[in-house]
Every structure is written in structure tokens, then in C-alpha cells.
């Protein structure tokens, strides 16, 4: 049991039906079973998997078995293509306001990586576009959260706007934007406290920050190791705030990262960047096809297919 990846799985299935000219419905059923398991093991939400499998079935039944590909490879190709499409194109850009400062708000569950990602995004945008960011410390709850952001600010040699932990986050955010205008910072990153999507009071606080600062981007930071609950989290944050993008963190680990697919499927918002480490330069643009291969448990599916 427990095959390393989908390719092994499908190979096993296809030993039985090798040499057939057409993929029959029964074959497809066998195969989609394997695909389903692979996706579930990668933490893709089971409802998302269900929809996905139905699409695959439609596409795969009756297909001619290509001479150049084994049926297993062919199915992988279909699956990989569908996954890639579902995850959207590459959109690793932050939307810039034509009336600076651009306001970027980061939200998410506790410990997802918001504060670190705040530092990373600011670093990235300064490097790529020569912008002058201001970091706003709006987490007044977590012990030493402000200190954490200030430390990142000094590592980056970047200003951090803080008012201690007695002012309301809404007020801090508002004043941070005013301060950015005054100091000619062209982009403000608002680091918010981690919160549960079911914590009504704290979710309302985010709505109020949004209202007060009219952000150009509201980014949900999601831990790539998240399991089935990712859809509930993403759905709630999206409903309350209207997300504009997602950053997946901790993809330097060995998780398959199926949450990426779940989050994209329920919010429709693009995954813009991925976090690849704890250091402040460990941020990369999101590549849908790489993510698809990863979820399927394969290094690079396309080369695998081409070699065959």
C-alpha cells in the first residue's frame, strides 16, 4: 500500500489493462480511484476532489490510447493539465494603486506565517520595483508580535509603524496609512493578528480595518500543510473580506500542499506567491504546473511523460 506517487499507482493499475486500444469506462473507474486517493493523501479537500474526478472522467472515457504514451501516463497528463488549469495562471504581482500609498493587508489563521510574509513581500517589492514600503504593526494580541515585526524591519532596514498594544488595530492601520502619505512611502503592509475564521469579533475587526484603509490587496496567508479544513478557512475569510490573493507558506517542507487546490477552488482568488523558508528572501512566484506535479507527488510530470 501507500505508493509514493500517482505514477506508481497508475502503473500498477495499468499492468492489468495494457495493450488495450481504448480506455474503457471500467478502466477509467479504476484509474480515477487511484487519482482520488492520491489527491486525498495530498490534503486536497474531499469535495474538491469529487468535482475534480468527475471532470477527469468526462475527459478520459473513450480516449484513444496514444501510441507514444502508456495509458497511465496519458491519464496523468490529463490530470496534471486539469490541475494546472484549476490553479490558474501565474499572477505573482501585487496590484498597485495609482494613488499611493498602495495598501496591502495580510490575514490568516494563527501561526500561518503572516508576519514573516509581510517582511518577505516588502523586501520583494522593494527589490523588484524599487518601492519604499512601510510596515504596520497591527497585531496587539500575540506576545511580542510588535517586537517581531520591528526586528524584521531592522533586518530589512525598513520603517515599522507601531503604537504599542493599547491602541485598536483599526486606529493603528489608519494612522499607518496617513504616516505613509506623509513620509512618501508608496506601499503599506498591514500585519494583522492571527485569528480563527469562526471568531466573529476578530473577523469584524478585520472588516473594520478594511473599511478604514481601503486596501488594494487583501492577502490570505495559508500554511501549505493545512488539511481538509483549508476550505472552511478560505471560504470564511473570503466571504467576510473579499480576498484578492493568497500566499502559501512553508512549501520548503515535504508536504504535498493539496490545500493550494482547495483554497483556489473555493475562493477563486489567485495564489500569488509561495514561502520557501524562514529567511526574508525565501519568497517565490507561484507556478501552477509545479504545484500540480507536487500535489500528484511527482518531481516533474512533463519530463516524465516526454521521456516515455
Amino acid at each position, binding site marked *: 500500500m501507500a505508493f509514493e506517487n500517482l505514477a506508481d499507482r497508475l502503473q500498477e493499475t495499468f499492468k492489468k489493462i495494457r495493450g488495450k486500444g481504448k480506455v474503457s469506462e471500467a478502466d477509467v473507474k479504476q484509474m480515477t480511484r487511484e487519482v482520488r486517493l492520491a489527491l486525498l493523501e495530498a*490534503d486536497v479537500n*474531499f469535495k474538491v476532489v469529487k468535482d475534480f474526478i468527475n471532470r477527469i472522467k468526462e475527459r478520459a472515457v473513450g480516449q484513444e490510447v496514444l501510441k507514444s504514451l502508456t495509458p497511465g501516463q496519458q491519464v496523468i497528463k490529463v490530470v496534471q493539465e486539469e490541475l494546472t488549469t484549476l490553479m490558474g495562471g501565474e499572477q505573482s504581482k501585487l496590484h498597485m494603486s495609482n494613488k499611493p500609498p498602495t495598501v496591502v493587508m495580510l490575514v490568516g489563521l494563527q501561526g500561518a506565517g503572516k508576519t514573516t510574509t509581510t517582511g518577505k513581500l516588502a523586501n520583494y517589492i522593494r527589490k523588484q520595483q524599487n518601492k519604499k514600503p512601510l510596515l504596520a504593526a497591527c497585531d496587539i494580541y500575540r506576545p*511580542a508580535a510588535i517586537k517581531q*515585526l520591528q526586528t524584521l524591519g531592522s533586518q530589512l532596514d525598513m520603517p515599522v509603524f507601531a503604537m504599542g498594544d493599547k491602541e485598536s488595530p483599526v486606529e493603528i492601520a489608519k494612522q499607518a496609512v496617513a504616516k505613509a502619505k506623509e513620509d512618501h512611502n508608496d506601499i503599506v503592509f498591514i500585519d494583522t493578528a492571527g485569528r480563527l*475564521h469562526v471568531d466573529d469579533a476578530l473577523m469584524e475587526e478585520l472588516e473594520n480595518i478594511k473599511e478604514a484603509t481601503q486596501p488594494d490587496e487583501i492577502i490570505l496567508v495559508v500554511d501549505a500543510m*493545512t488539511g481538509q*479544513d483549508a476550505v472552511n478557512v478560505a471560504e470564511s475569510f473570503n466571504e467576510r473580506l473579499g480576498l484578492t490573493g493568497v500566499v502559501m507558506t512553508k512549501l520548503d517542507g515535504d*508536504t504535498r500542499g493539496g490545500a493550494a487546490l482547495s483554497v483556489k477552488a473555493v475562493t477563486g482568488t489567485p495564489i500569488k506567491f509561495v514561502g520557501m523558508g524562514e529567511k526574508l528572501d525565501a519568497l517565490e512566484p507561484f507556478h501552477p504546473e509545479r504545484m500540480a506535479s507536487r500535489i500528484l507527488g511527482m518531481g516533474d510530470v512533463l519530463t516524465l511523460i516526454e521521456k516515455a
Partner: protein
Amino acid sequence: AKTRESMASRVNNLVKRYRKVDEDFFEELEEILISADVGVNTVLELVEKLKDEARTRNIKETEQLKDVIIEVLSSMLTEEEKDTSIAMQADGLTVILVVGVNGVGKTTTIGKMAYKFKEEGKSVLLAAGDTFRAGAIEQLEVWGQRANVDVIKHHEGSDPAAVVYDAVMAAKSRGVDVLICDTAGRLQNKVNLMKELEKVKRVISREIPEAPHEVLLVLDATTGQNAMNQAKIFGEATDVSGIVLTKLDGTAKGGIVLAIRHELDLPVKFVGLGEGIHDLQPFDSDTFVYGLFSE
């Protein structure tokens, strides 16, 4: 009993919707379990068991299978009770090492544990073994103040093994009951960081041969299948003795710990139910399984 009731109502529901025992029926049963992040292999094993039962007993109607399902599930899920208490030394120092991946709740859990042990009348000392993450030392210091216990620290960037060594020395000379060591979050596939952790543990064992008396792996309930890898690899590197499952106050069920207990035989010792100092509870398998089956 609660466990059985809640499972029964979920299973009843299922039985009503599918009268016949067929693939779709089993698939939905699978989904109930998978949606709680119970490990995929564990779920498959469970469902396989049920299919066998149905076959051998020639059961065709779901109604007849109901009791079997509840039986098989509850026996697998609440199998032998594990010892979930902390291995406190009757006299002398107890050393607890806390490990886990980034952001799961290690430092917070240490703050809560420190408070709990203090309340029980023990003297507690903390070691700021995360010298890497920005603000980590200050964060532990705030928890130290809240629980009213001292924190042994060096400055950011220093060697964590050296901090822990100093803390062990201090704990011995002060004669405290419990020393809890914080460590930096690290992903289990980072070989160098796992080596560093092994070294921290060795430093403790060198001073007190039977210590650390507990190595607690903190797992985030929101985590899916990857938690199994975390348990395996941290287990190999540091001989983990128990799990703390945090963030159960959210909607995630943390079902993966069932698979971890099933495959690796690791008990859950505490659960985290919030960000406050009181939000730590001993693990109760009935309550846990109840949550697993609630919608």
C-alpha cells in the same frame, strides 16, 4: 459513551440515506472520516475491515451493518487507553523538551504548561531555546511573566544548545521541579536543523542521563496528512514521548493524531483550545472522537 452516541447519530444518518451496502455507501463513510483529517491509510484500513465484515456475514442492507460500523470504529478509535500524564519525577528535576514545525504553538503551549505546573505548586524554569526567530525570546519572556516563572536566555543568534545547557545548570542549582525548553520551529525535512535539535537533546542527557523526561511534539490540529511525517521524523530524531495537539478551538478536527497513534503508538498528552493561559487541557479521547464526528 459520548463517543458512541455521536458516532451513532452520524452513522444513522448515513444508513438512512443509503439503504443498500454498496461502493457509494462506503465512499461516503470514507469521506466523513477523511474530512476530519484522519489519515487516508487508516481510513482505508477501517473501511476495508467493514467491507470484509459485510462480505463474510453476507450483509446487504445498511441497517444491518450499523452496529458493526459503530463497533469497528469505536474499537479502532478508542483502542487501548494510553498513559497521557506527564512523566513527573517524584523527586528532583523533570526536564521537558518541546519540539515541532514552525508556528504550531510551541512557545504558547510552554507558557500554558508553566502556568499549569505553577498552579499545581511546582517550581518552574523556562529555557529560551529559540534563538533564531525574530521576537521569539521576547515572546517567551512575556509568557514567563504571565506565569510568573523565570526564563533563562541568551541573545538572538546564539547557540541553542548553550542556552539549554545553562538552563539545566540553573535548574539544578536552584533546585526547581520542572524545566521546560523551547526550541525554534523547524520543518522535519531540514536535516541540519534536525541535527541541531539532536544536539540540544544530547546536551540535556549528558547532564542528566534520564532526561529529557518528556519530549513533546506540538502538532497543529489544522495540519493534514503531513503531521504523520512530522511525527515520524521528529520521533526518530528526538524520541518523542507525547503529542500536544493545538488549535482545537477552531473547526479543524485533528483526526491525523488517530493515524499517528495507530501507526506510531504515540499518545496525545494535552490539547490546546485557545491563545489564553488557561487554554490547555489533558487529552480526553471520548471528547476528541466526539468532535471528530460532529458536523
